[in-house]
């Protein structure tokens, strides 16, 4: 007996939906094995990690607060990946968006008006989009691989932020801590609930719905799908590959920048060296887990948000390093890519040939 991969005649729609479910199950089982190997009770640990965050209102709120940026970035990346454009640098675009948006509270602190908040949101999106256009330009003019450039620009952005908060934008009354002034009044997003829920969640949901409509029903969405899956047919349809690259980078970068601004004008309330627990990278997993479908991304965003909160919970309760969060996220991406193989292939057992009358090669 031998297990082989056999190519399917047609991509399987069922597996396309089943693959993320299967990947989550394998991740849970592997996670349980790892907990057991660490000498922790696996069932308790899994419960604390995946279920406990959903048992109290405050932790549900925390999950939603974390899901906001993941969904906002994830939907942009989903569109990008559909077009076969590989923006891996959302984390950097998020950082530059936060920096751009912070211009108003840091340099024009006296300007208090709803317009100031609106301007911050616009600047955040603009900053992320402009920063994302660097890899787009390098790709379309010099043929440089966007995976490398967008990834490397993340470190440039993070060092830029670091320099700003330790240098020119450091709060003069901040006891020399590397932080900007605290944002106040209209420089912060409206909050509600126990004080952590904010407008960003609405923005993320809105973006997901709008992009769902565009991708499902409009010519622009059709263009992105065609250029991504059949570039020559795209050229035949008169769709420009170059324009698609620019559009996708501007869109996903803009949304990542917006997410960055929302973080600093929401839960954080000021600039500091670290403003994101790798939302920009985790959103890559969110996009794939959500099947590159903006509605799917909403659910995937919530699941990955649970993994952050669960990681913190398990650290408190069982004393396991919260690095376990990154491990779970890594496993999930790994298994989902693995299970995606089954969309185009099926597993098949073949038995050894019943009667092997092979003629000898010498005769």
């Amino acid at each position, binding site marked *: 007996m031998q297990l082989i991969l056999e190519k399917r*005649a*047609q*991509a399987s729609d069922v597996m396309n939906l089943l693959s993320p479910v299967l990947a989550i199950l394998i991740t849970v089982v592997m996670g349980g094995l790892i907990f057991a190997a660490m000498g922790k009770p696996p069932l308790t640990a899994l419960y604390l990690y995946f279920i406990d965050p959903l048992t109290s209102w405050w932790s549900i709120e925390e999950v939603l607060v974390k899901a906001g940026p993941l969904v906002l970035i994830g939907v942009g990346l989903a569109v990008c990946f559909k077009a076969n454009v590989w923006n891996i640098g959302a984390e950097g675009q998020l950082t530059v968006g936060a920096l751009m948006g912070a211009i108003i509270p840091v340099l024009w602190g006296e300007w208090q008006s709803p317009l100031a908040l609106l301007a911050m949101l616009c600047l955040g999106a603009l900053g992320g989009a402009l920063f994302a256009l660097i890899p787009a330009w390098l790709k379309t003019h010099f043929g440089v691989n966007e995976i490398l450039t967008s990834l490397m620009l993340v470190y440039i952005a993070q060092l830029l932020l670091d320099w700003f908060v330790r240098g020119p934008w450091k709060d003069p009354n901040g006891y020399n801590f590397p932080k900007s002034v605290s944002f106040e009044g209209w420089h912060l997003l409206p909050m509600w609930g126990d004080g952590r829920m904010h407008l960003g969640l609405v923005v993320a949901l809105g973006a997901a719905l709008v992009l769902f*409509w565009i991708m499902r*029903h*409009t*010519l622009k969405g*059709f263009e992105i*799908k*065609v250029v991504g*899956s*059949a570039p*020559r*047919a795209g*050229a*035949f*349809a*008169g769709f420009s590959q170059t324009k698609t690259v620019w559009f996708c980078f501007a869109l996903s970068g803009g949304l990542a920048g917006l997410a960055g601004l929302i973080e600093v004008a929401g839960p954080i309330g000021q600039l500091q060296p670290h403003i994101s627990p790798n939302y920009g990278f985790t959103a890559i997993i969110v996009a794939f887990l959500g099947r590159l479908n903006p509605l799917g991304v909403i659910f995937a965003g919530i699941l990955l948000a649970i993994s952050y909160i669960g990681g913190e919970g398990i650290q408190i309760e069982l004393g396991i390093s919260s690095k376990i969060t990154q491990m779970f996220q890594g496993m999930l991406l790994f298994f989902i890519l693995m299970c995606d193989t089954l969309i185009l292939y099926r597993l098949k057992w073949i038995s050894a*040939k019943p009667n*092997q*009358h*092979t*003629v*000898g*090669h010498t*005769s």
Partner: protein
Amino acid sequence: MLHKSNNDAQSTLLQVKNISKKFGDFYANDMLNLSIETGKVHALLGENGAGKSTLVKMMYGALQPTSGSIHWQGQHVSIDSPAHARNLGIGMVFQHFSLFEALTVAENISLALPAQLRQGDLSQRIADLSQDYGLPLNPAALVADLSVGERQRIEIVRCLLQQPKLLIMDEPTAVLTPQEAQALFSTLRRLVEEGCAVLYISHRLEEVKQICHDATILRHGKLVAEVDPQVETAATLAQLMVGASVHQVSRDANDQVGDVLLELSHLYKGSSTPFGVDLVDVNLQVKSGEILAIAGVAGNGQGELFSVISGEECNPNQNFISLLGQISDGLNINQRRCLGAAFVPEERMGHSAVEHLSLTDNILLSRHACIDTESSLDLGWLGIDRNQLAHLNKVIGIDYDVRKSKEDAIAGSLSGGNLQKFVVGRELNRQPKVLVINQPTWGVDAGAAALIRQAVVDLSRQGSAILIISQDLDEIFELADTIAVMSRGQLSPTYAAGDLSREQIGLMMAGSHERSAQGSGA
């Protein structure tokens, strides 16, 4: 080996008994029987999709039969892999070559040979063998610089070096000029005289009559006849292949020739890919009511010419191309469509259609930009006019006899012929004033080909200008009012179809019209 031969006829080299191959629920081969004899050229005839490739892939070990058996020199064998087939003495020359363009002839051959054959002076052996069999090859030449005919010789020499007892050739003349084909036939005759057997796959009946001793005809995976091609006529063979008599394209004399609608003057275009072909000083005119056919062996710049005329590659600041009286070099493909032009590329999957999209989406592909329907298909933020698309799909399906599993099927689920009818119908439904169509019936069954050709002729007789790029001389003589020939990026002057013979076209395919000073630039 001690297996007793259960075959009395000593000359039977390979015998296939009741072989079937099933893909899913579909029988690609259904209980086929075939025997190939030493010293004969055996033809395997059938339309595209009849199961010829499946059958030979099983003989060559690239596929395993679902049931049935293969006997080699009287002994039951199970051919596990192409390497096993080669060990037995079966060689195969594929329709699509697997050669590395950046390597030399000798390097390419060496890569594919088993270690023991790579010993010694391979280049010298290649040169000797190719000279001996009338297949001249320079072992040190780069493959990228060679013509398709020369590339085929590499594949043949590669097989001959292993001294096969059976040589399988899949549509070998599809890529050759008539003269090159004749040279190939002499080589095959020589091989057969030396005792080798040849399995010759083709759908060109004249050449089967010319060189083959036996013929097996397949249709829809079943064996329909075993005949002596010397006795049959091309017409009776065609009827066996297709299963019915084929519609003859009817064509009135065209006395309605009018204004020039498509004109290229002194067009130069450097290739945009490393191994592409540069277009050099291309001139042509197509008038209203006229069909101009460009003949030529594939890979001589036809693809490049198509993308320049269609506007998939546009060149602002030039004025080589005039469409309906307007200089169009700077216009993109959709602007050219809006002027009244329509285009059908050679490749169906991934170029003129997207495999995994529905038929209505595939209509949108080339019809979204210009309003030649009741109203625009693109409603902006509101989406796409799906009702109108569904209506168009229905009309095209009826008018062009597109057979599909359901009304809005996935493009990839249609057979080649039906997809081509759909693609051509999508463009002709617009009543374009200018139609440019590359290999209109490539890989299409005879019934679909006749329908497409008739539709093209009808369009021209309604006053459209039509440019056909084709490798199929039968098709060209069937359709064209005027003919030009392309070789190495250069286009011959245009001749009236009646003034040219096949031989003259063959000479021009080989480059007799080229201006030597300009060369190919390769």
